[in-house]
C-alpha cells in the first residue's frame, strides 16, 4: 500500500460520496484497524540479542556497529522484546577465524585484513574491504549452530538477530528528468520536464538479516534487502547520512518480522 494511493483516496472518496444521493442515511463510515501478524512466530522469546554483522564494502561507516545500534534502538521503541545490551560482536573477525583453511576463503587471500581490521582503523588506506560476493563466502558462520547455541546460552537463550551488511559508494551517470519552471510570453508560470545528462553519486546498502533461535542455534528466518540512493554529483552527502536514509527504508520491514502491526483506515458500512 502506498501513501500516495491512500492520500488520493482520502481526497477522492469524500468527493465521490458527496456526489451520491444521501441514500436515506444508508451508509456509515467506520474506522477499522486491520491487524497484520508478524512474519516470524516469536512467541517463544522475550529477549532479543542483536549480536553483530559480517560487514563489507565501504569503510566510511562502521556498518556492523551502526546497524546493531540502530536495530537495538528500533526494537526497544517498537517491540515488546527486552533488548539485550551487550557489546557488539566483531562478527567479520569471527567469520574469518571460522573460515580459515577453507579453500574458497583462502582463494580470497584469507588475510582477514579487509574486514574487521579495517573497521578497527587498521587499514590506513581506507577504501573497499569485502565485496558482496566475498560476504557470501563468510556466511557459513550462520550455519554453525553450535556457535550460536553457545552464544544463546551466554545470554539466556534469546532470539538472535545477525546477518551481513554491505554498504558501498555507487555512481551512475546518464539522462535524468527534472522539473523546470518556465514562463510564457504572458508571464504565466508553468513547470516543464527537462532531460539532462547528469553525474550522480550515492550509495548501495544491501543487508541480509538472519534470525537465529538462541536455544538451538538454528536459523529461523532470513530476509534480504537492497536499496540504493543517488545524489547529484555536486552534492556532498556524508556516508553516514546516506546509510541512515537507506536503513530508514528497511526498518518497517525488519520490524514487521518480529512484531504485529495495525493498519488504520476507514470503511463504509451499508444498510
Amino acid at each position, binding site marked *: 500500500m502506498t501513501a500516495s494511493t491512500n492520500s488520493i483516496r482520502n481526497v477522492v472518496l469524500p468527493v465521490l460520496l458527496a456526489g*451520491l444521493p444521501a441514500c436515506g442515511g444508508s451508509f*456509515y463510515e467506520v474506522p*477499522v484497524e486491520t*491487524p497484520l501478524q508478524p512474519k516470524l512466530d516469536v512467541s517463544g522469546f522475550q529477549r532479543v540479542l542483536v549480536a553483530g554483522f559480517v560487514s563489507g564494502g565501504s569503510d566510511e561507516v562502521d556498518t556492523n556497529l551502526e546497524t546493531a545500534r540502530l536495530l537495538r534502538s528500533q526494537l526497544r521503541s517498537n517491540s515488546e522484546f527486552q533488548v539485550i545490551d551487550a557489546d557488539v560482536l566483531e562478527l567479520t573477525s569471527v567469520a574469518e577465524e571460522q573460515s580459515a583453511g577453507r579453500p574458497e576463503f583462502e582463494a580470497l587471500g584469507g588475510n582477514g585484513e579487509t574486514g574487521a581490521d579495517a573497521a578497527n582503523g587498521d587499514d590506513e588506506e581506507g577504501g573497499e574491504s569485502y565485496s558482496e560476493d566475498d560476504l557470501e563466502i563468510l556466511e557459513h558462520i550462520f550455519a554453525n549452530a553450535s556457535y550460536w547455541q553457545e552464544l544463546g546460552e551466554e545470554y539466556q537463550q534469546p532470539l538472535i538477530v545477525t546477518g551481513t551488511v554491505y554498504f558501498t559508494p555507487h555512481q551512475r551517470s546518464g539522462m535524468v528528468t527534472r522539473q523546470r519552471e518556465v514562463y510564457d510570453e504572458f508571464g504565466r508560470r508553468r513547470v516543464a520536464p527537462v532531460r539532462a545528462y547528469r553525474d550522480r553519486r550515492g550509495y548501495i546498502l544491501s543487508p541480509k538479516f538472519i534470525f537465529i533461535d538462541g536455544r538451538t542455534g538454528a536459523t529461523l528466518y532470513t530476509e534480504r534487502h537492497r536499496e540504493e540512493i543517488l545524489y547529484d554529483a555536486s552534492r556532498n552527502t556524508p556516508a553516514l547520512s546516506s546509510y541512515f536514509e537507506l536503513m530508514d527504508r528497511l526498518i518497517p520491514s525488519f520490524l514487521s518480522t518480529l512484531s504485529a502491526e495495525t493498519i488504520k*483506515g476507514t470503511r463504509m*458500512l451499508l*444498510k
Partner: protein
Amino acid sequence: MFIRSAVVVCALLAASAHAVTADERSDARAQVEFGIEVVRNGLWKEAIYRWERAVEIDDSYAAAWNNLGIAYEHEGMFDKAREAYERALDLDPGNLMIQQNYDLFREINDRINELDP
C-alpha cells in the same frame, strides 16, 4: 380443469414464496442495522454474528456481505473477508462504496501476501 388447478396452486405458491422473501428481507435488514449499532460500540464479534445471520436469512443481501467483509478484515480473517467482499460485488457490481472497501482491503491483503515468507 386439472391445468387450471395446477396454475392456481403455482400462483399461490409463488405468492407465498414472495411473501416469505419479503419477511426474510425485513429480518435480515434488522440484523444488519443491529450489527451497525453494535459496531459503533466497538463490538465487532457481535456484529459478525448479526451479519452472518443476515446473510443466512437472505443470501442475496449485498450490504450484509459488504459489512461482513469489513468485520472479517477488522478481525484479521482475510480469506473470509475477500469472499464476503467478492460476494457483495457479485450481487451489486456497480456499488462504488463496496468497490472502494474491496480495493482498500486488497491493498492490505497484497501487502500481507508479500510479507509471507
